Each structure stands twice: as structure tokens, then as C-alpha cells.
């Protein structure tokens, strides 16, 4: 049975294909369209999935959309009417936005794929999150927690799931918290207030939080009221996201926290305003963590289960995940590699396959590499045409060569096999570097990633060595499998791991099993033989504002536009010529000389 899952229209569109109950491929639209957080209908992603599996749309048994778009429309309409007359300005836009295309998901799918209407199914948004978290995890019974901005109405759900011995699958969502009460929207409101992009830059708030102190938790507490049943309610006077898409916070919010940050001003932690913004980030982070821990602890007591599967965009918050693992009572915490809306494509397909169609349970491979493969020949051809140094090496020689380059403080663009599904670079599309010095961190921020100074870099370490360098609680290595938890770097190693140690002594590490990425694992060991520490800095292979690279040519383009020294794809290694780096400077000089000469000056 072939089931296609689709998520689209809000952020991070994606498609995923199941064949006989097992995912065979999945890819985000942004990786193919090259538009960051592409929300368009994922025609390219669907086409790639079908081509990859050599299928025609007519071969599909079901196409599953990840949410009930008509219920979402009902919510948007209800909120607009409740907020009348304040919402009169935003109402036409909201209707145009919804009725122009989003509510007609069935028609759009039908028009693109030509499948009959009865093959098009819908799951609820949080059912998709729950299935993506539970059915991809190596557990048979688990509690389930999902939390994000908002789906149709739900913003947070708790429940449990079971994969029975007889092959049947149960997913039961016991309770939900409904819009406008939303932990995701609370965090996004602070994201907007701090001058970052909503639904995209929430991780910057988490990074900034480490620079501040949670001195404003009292004020944040005024925005979110805890209810006697263990849930929470936001105080609507402080928010505007429920009435308009153009502004998240109200003037009362500004009275409470002071003027918002101008997105174009740098965050200077030496100034009072800079410290205030960092304290805001630290405070909302603390409140988010406390709330999630309380909800997870209550869920543990209610279900008595030892495993928790956590999905939804809020599950990208690695600091909160680590606290849930440490304090909620669950022994293991599973967060999928794509817990956000992109992962709902997989979740919707799995939910429909197991629950709607009643197909028997199957184990899902425990890795994130579901996207297009890199073509090393394409890289070699492009680099030779561009007059770069290209060499081809056997696997073992390549590992040794790259380890030498890393030990010489060179920065590596690393492309290997199929691309990751989800926002993390987990070793197949990564920029790798030595993790030892602040200078390396600053160089990466300045010359390669072109991003804010306060943002940390993540390490990758073989799982066997993870406990040596990082303080992992029981279950921590599992959480670090997909870089989903933030843990302390052991104090004695912080000075030698300065590039990946955040200001608060923590790191969002990836603990790598050999089976998951054998070449990167071998590279870590080879680098460890040279430096004494088998840890590398691992950041996503992209420039600021761009999606992670997919094809070899995109990797090559990125390599040429920034300070990466060496690019590797499979057996092909490209070194940047020193003359190439100098060329723009010469051109500048020539241009200045020419213009000065032409104007008769000097």
C-alpha cells in the first residue's frame, strides 16, 4: 500500500511517501525550491518522492493532508468575529488568505495529482504531530505530548499510544488546550518582541536566553495563568495574535516589558536594553520550561509509562527537552528529527496508514536521512569547469585527509548520502570544523554563516565518547541522537571545546552512532586520533537566510560564496585555491584604479 503525506500552506511544506507502512522518502519543499520555510503546495517535493519510488500518482492508495483545513478556517473566522470590531482591518485579509486557496486543500491535491476525491484523506494537525513522534520512535507504548503554535484549534495535546502485538496501533489524545492559549504562541510573541522572525527564529530566543537572567519571570507570569487542572491560560489583553496576523503583542505587553527591539539594531549586551532583551528571553524560556515540565510530570503520573514521545514545533526547544527528561519522571524522551510541521507529512501518512486504513504496525527506520542523495560526479564536474583543485579518494584515505584538514583548522563542507529531513544538519549536509577555540566560532559567524555573535554552534561526538565530554543524564544520549537536547559540557573540557560551549556552559550535541552515519563516525575517530578529542563542530550547510543545501551544485555554490576551505561529497574533495579567494580584492583594486585614472584624479 502506497500512502503520500503532505503538509503545506503555513510554513515548512513537505511531502513523505510510505510504501507498505514504511517511509521510503521525505523532503521539505524548501530544499528543492531553495526558498527558506517555503509554505507553497509542495509540488516539487511530491514529484521527487514519486520519482524516487518510481510511482505515478495513480499508483497511490491514499493521499493524506496533515490537517483539516476547513476546521482551521472555522477557527480563523470565529476568532475574527470574537475580536470584532478590533479585527475589522485584518478580517478581509484573513478571508482572502483562507478562501483563496488554503481551505480548498482537497481540490488543490486533486488538481495537481489527478487522484480521485475518495483517496484524499485528512488527519487533525496534532494527530499528525503525535503520529510523527510516536510511530517513528523505537518504543511500543508511550505517553504522547504535542505542543506548537496552533493547528486547527488545539495548541497542546496529551495522550498515549500503543503498538500492539497483533499489529494494531492505538493513538489516543486524552485532552487538549485550545487556541488562543498556546505555549508556542507565547514563545513566538517574545520572538516578535525581540525583533526576530516568527515561526523561524524561535531558536535565536533560546540562544539569547543563556546570556540573560530570568529576572522577569514575574512579569511573564502575568501573561500566563496556571489553571487548577494543571493546564494554563494566556491572558488575552497582552496579545494581539488572536485578532491580527500583523502584530503579536499588545500595548499592555509593551507597558510591561518596555519598548520592543528594532530588528535592525544589533543586540549589545553591554547596554541596558541589550541586557533587558536577554533577560526577557531567559524569563520566557524559564516559564516555558516550567510549564512543560509540570504538564509532562502530570502525564507521567497519569499514564505510569516510562517513555514520552514529544512532537510539535515546541519540541525543537532543546533546553526544555533536557529539563523534561531530567524532571518529569519519564526514563526516555523521543523527539523526532522533524518535530515541526514538515514532520507532519510523515505523521499524517503514518496515522492514515495505521489508524484509518488499519494496516499492521511496522518498525520505522531510526534515522533522519530521507531526502535526495548527493551526486559526487556533479560536484567534480562543476569544480573542474571552475578551475578548482579536485581530487578523488578512497573512503579510508578521504577520512584521513579530511581529518588532517580539520586538524589544520580548515573548515569543511561535508555532503554525504541522502539529505536530512528536518531542520537539523545531522551529518549529511554539515559544515564541520575544529571545536577548540573562540576564534573558530567567530570565524564561522563572520566569514561563513554571516549570523549573530550570540548564537552557539553544536558539537557532534561518537555516542561511545559522549559521556566523557558532556554531562548526559540517563536517556540523554537518545535525546541527543537527533540533536534534540541541550546538556552541560563537562567543566574540565570547556576550555578545549570553546567553539561549541555556549555562554552558560551547555551545548546542543549530537551523539552519533556508527550505524547512522558511518563516514562521519569514522571521521570523528580519525580527528580524535589527531587532537585527542573526538568532537567536531557541526553546523548546518547553508548561509544565513538560505535553506540547507541539497544537491552538490548548491553545496558548491555555497562553498564559493563563503569562507569554507574544503568541500567533500562522497569520494570527491575540492580545495579552494588561495588565488580564488584573493580575486574579488584584485577586481576591487582594478576598478578603483580604472575609475580614478578615468576621472583624471591622483
Amino acid at each position, binding site marked *: 500500500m502506497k500512502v503520500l503525506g503532505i503538509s503545506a500552506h503555513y510554513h515548512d511544506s513537505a511531502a513523505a511517501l510510505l510504501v507498505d507502512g514504511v517511509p521510503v522518502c521525505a523532503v521539505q519543499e524548501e530544499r528543492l525550491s531553495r526558498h527558506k520555510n517555503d509554505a507553497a503546495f509542495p*509540488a516539487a517535493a*511530491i*514529484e521527487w518522492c*514519486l*520519482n524516487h519510488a518510481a*510511482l*505515478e*500518482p495513480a499508483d497511490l492508495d491514499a493521499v493524506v493532508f496533515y490537517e*483539516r*483545513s*476547513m*476546521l482551521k*478556517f*472555522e*477557527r480563523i*473566522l*470565529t476568532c475574527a*468575529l470574537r475580536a470584532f470590531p478590533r479585527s475589522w482591518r485584518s478580517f478581509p485579509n484573513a*478571508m482572502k488568505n483562507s*478562501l*483563496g486557496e488554503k*481551505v*480548498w*486543500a*482537497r*481540490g*488543490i491535491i*486533486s*488538481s*495537481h*495529482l*489527478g487522484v480521485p*476525491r475518495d483517496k484524499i484523506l*485528512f488527519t487533525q494537525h496534532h494527530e499528525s504531530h503525535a503520529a510523527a513522534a510516536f510511530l517513528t520512535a523505537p518504543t511500543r507504548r508511550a505517553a504522547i505530548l504535542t505542543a506548537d503554535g496552533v493547528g486547527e*484549534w488545539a495548541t497542546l495535546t496529551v495522550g498515549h499510544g500503543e503498538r500492539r502485538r497483533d499489529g494494531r496501533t492505538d493513538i489516543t489524545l486524552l485532552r487538549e488546550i*485550545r487556541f488562543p492559549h498556546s505555549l508556542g504562541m507565547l514563545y513566538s510573541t517574545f520572538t516578535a518582541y525581540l525583533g526576530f522572525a516568527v515561526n523561524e527564529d524561535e531558536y535565536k530566543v533560546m540562544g539569547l536566553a543563556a546570556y540573560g537572567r530570568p529576572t522577569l519571570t514575574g512579569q511573564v507570569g502575568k501573561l500566563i495563568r496556571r489553571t487548577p487542572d494543571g493546564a494554563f491560560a494566556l491572558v488575552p489583553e497582552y496579545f494581539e495574535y488572536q485578532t491580527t496576523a500583523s502584530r503579536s503583542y499588545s500595548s499592555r505587553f509593551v507597558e510591561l516589558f518596555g519598548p520592543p527591539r528594532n530588528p535592525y539594531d544589533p543586540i549589545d549586551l553591554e547596554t541596558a536594553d541589550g541586557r533587558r532583551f536577554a533577560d526577557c528571553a531567559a524569563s520566557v524560556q524559564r516559564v516555558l520550561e516550567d510549564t512543560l515540565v509540570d504538564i509532562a510530570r502530570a502525564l507521567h503520573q497519569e499514564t505510569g509509562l516510562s517513555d514520552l514521545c514529544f512532537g510539535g514545533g515546541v519540541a525543537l526547544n532543546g533546553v526544555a527537552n533536557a529539563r523534561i527528561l531530567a524532571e518529569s519522571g519519564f526514563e526516555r524522551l523521543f523527539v523526532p528529527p522533524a518535530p515541526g510541521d514538515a514532520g507532519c507529512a510523515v505523521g499524517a501518512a503514518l496515522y492514515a496508514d495505521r489508524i484509518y486504513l488499519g494496516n499492521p504496525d511496522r518498525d520505522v527506520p531510526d534515522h533522519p536521512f530521507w531526502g535526495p542523495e548527493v551526486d559526487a560526479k556533479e560536484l567534480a564536474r562543476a569544480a573542474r569547469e571552475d578551475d578548482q583543485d579536485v581530487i578523488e579518494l578512497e573512503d579510508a584515505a578521504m577520512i584521513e585527509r579530511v581529518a588532517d584538514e580539520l586538524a589544520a583548522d580548515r573548515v569543511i563542507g561535508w555532503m554525504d548520502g541522502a539529505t536530512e529531513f528536518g531542520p537539523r544538519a545531522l551529518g549529511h549536509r554539515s559544515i564541520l570544523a575544529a571545536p577548540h577555540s573562540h576564534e573558530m566560532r567567530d570565524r564561522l559567524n563572520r566569514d561563513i554563516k554571516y549570523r549573530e555573535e550570540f548564537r552557539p554552534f553544536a558539537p557532534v561526538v561518537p555516542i561511545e565518547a559522549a559521556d566523557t565530554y558532556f554531562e548526559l543524564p540517563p536517556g540523554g544520549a537518545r535525546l541527543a541522537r537527533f540533536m534534540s537536547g541541550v546538556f552541560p559540557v563537562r567543566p574540565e573540557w570547556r576550555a578545549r571545546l570553546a567553539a561549541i560551549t555556549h555562554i552558560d556552559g551547555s551545548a546542543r550535541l549530537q551523539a552519533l552512532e556508527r550505524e547512522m552515519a558511518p563516514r562521519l563516525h569514522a571521521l570523528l575517530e580519525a580527528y580524535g586520533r589527531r587532537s585527542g578529542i573526538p568532537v567536531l563542530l557541526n553546523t548546518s550547510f547553508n548561509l544565513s537566510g538560505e535553506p540547507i543545501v541539497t544537491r552538490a551544485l548548491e553545496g558548491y555554490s555555497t562553498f564559493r560564496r563563503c569562507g569554507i576551505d574544503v568541500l567533500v561529497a562522497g569520494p570527491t574533495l575540492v580545495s579552494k585555491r588561495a588565488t580564488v579567494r584573493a580575486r574579488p580584492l584584485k577586481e576591487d583594486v582594478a576598478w578603483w584604479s580604472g575609475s580614478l585614472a578615468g576621472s583624471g584624479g591622483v
Partner: protein
Amino acid sequence: MVVRKPGGIRRRLIMLGTAGGSIADLIRGTWRSESGNRWLLPLAVFLCVFGLVLILATTVEALAPFIYAIF
């Protein structure tokens, strides 16, 4: 190339053809919803039909003057 790239007119006509099912989903979903919003159904259905009429106006240009004349 397996995914169709239908023209705008054809795509919108298919959307119009499936709109009845989508509106039925809306009615079913809202009726069963715990949000207690059954009172909203007439307005929601009206807006959907209104949206469809506008889609029809942009799809079949010959009809557009007549449709816009209504408003």
C-alpha cells in the same frame, strides 16, 4: 515528470468541482466540534460560497462582469 502542472483555469475548475465535498467537511466538522460554534455555520458556508464565486470570476473571465455586477 509525474505531477501535473495544470493551467490556472483547469486547476480552478477542479477546485470548484471538489468544493462541495470541502464545504460538507466544514459543516460536519463544525457540527461535531466541541467549540460550540454551530451558529457560525450559515456565515461560514456563505463565505465559502462567496470565495468560490470569486474564484469562478477569475477562472472564467467571460462571467466576471456579470459576477462583479452583483456586487
